[in-house]
């Protein structure tokens, strides 16, 4: 299983993560809203979204987008990858019928004073050719095959540091 572990020495600034594309349906949007207990009607009611919000359809909610970003990042790191911090900026909506595409680039690789290995990422979510959301993330990955960021607590876990 060691061969599957992504370690810090294998990552460098400028590396690109594999692209993820997904055909979004109304079901994707509704299941995502339910999974995050978001009952606001613009995420499940077509008439509310189009007539009250004035958009073309129901659209994906923010907490579900966070779940997509997490999945995208940990598909790359494997289960030892531990998210420290994520930041989002919403620019456009993701609608049924869109092809959602996530792309990511490594912007920094560092070891903090506690010895934790960190990768900084810029990740984008496009809906067809529209930039929907940008995300910056900081994820801890092992510095060696026997390292496990999940064991870190208290002073040895500093997710807020830049």
């Amino acid at each position, binding site marked *: 299983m060691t061969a599957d572990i992504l370690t810090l020495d294998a990552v460098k600034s400028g590396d690109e993560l594999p692209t993820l594309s997904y055909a979004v349906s109304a079901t994707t949007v509704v299941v995502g809203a339910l999974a995050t*207990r978001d009952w606001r009607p613009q995420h499940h009611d077509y008439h509310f979204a189009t007539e009250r919000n004035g958009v073309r359809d129901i659209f994906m909610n923010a907490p579900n987008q966070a*779940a997509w970003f997490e*999945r995208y990042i*940990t598909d790359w790191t494997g289960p030892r990858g531990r998210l420290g911090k994520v930041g989002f900026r919403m620019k456009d909506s993701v609608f049924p019928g869109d092809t959602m595409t996530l792309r990511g680039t490594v912007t920094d690789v560092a070891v903090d004073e506690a010895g934790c290995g960190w990768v900084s990422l810029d990740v984008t979510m496009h809906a067809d050719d529209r930039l929907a959301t940008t995300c910056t993330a900081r994820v801890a990955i092992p510095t060696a095959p026997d390292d496990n960021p999940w064991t870190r607590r208290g002073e040895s876990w500093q997710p807020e540091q830049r």
Partner: protein
Amino acid sequence: MSEDLPADVAALIGEVQYEEAGDFPVERGYIWTSCASVENGNPLFWDDKVAAELTAGPIAPPSMLSTWFRPHHWAPGRDVQRLPLQVHFDLKEQLGLPEAVMTDNTITFYEPVRPGDTITTGQRLRSVSPEKQTKLGTGRFWVIDVEYRNDRGELVGIESWTGFGYRRAA
């Protein structure tokens, strides 16, 4: 900090308000619903052996943090739906700013959330800007932190929201 800020708003900066516990303990059914919604096959959430090895037992995906506090659609005896970010709506009211948008959202993750945890949150107003003019209108930016803790009082995460409350340009 802005000098023209009303005293009642200025007094709230740094104070924890609306401390509340989530309606239900964290449970695996909802973890799997979340993973299914984004087709997340991370074995940490599906394979108990991997969870035992890496995280000393099952945990929830970090990005589910806010889900554990969001109220269910209905609960016996409840007639008013709680607002998840009440401080934001209070500020609109106190500052007389009828419109608002959220511009940025940052989440920092600390102790992992585990099945059986009940998550408690508190909302803390961090800052309010002087009045500013933007494309949307005239108003103020504010930053609100939502702090999440488990039953043992351990910090599990901080969600930070930047809002802009404004009056539409005439």
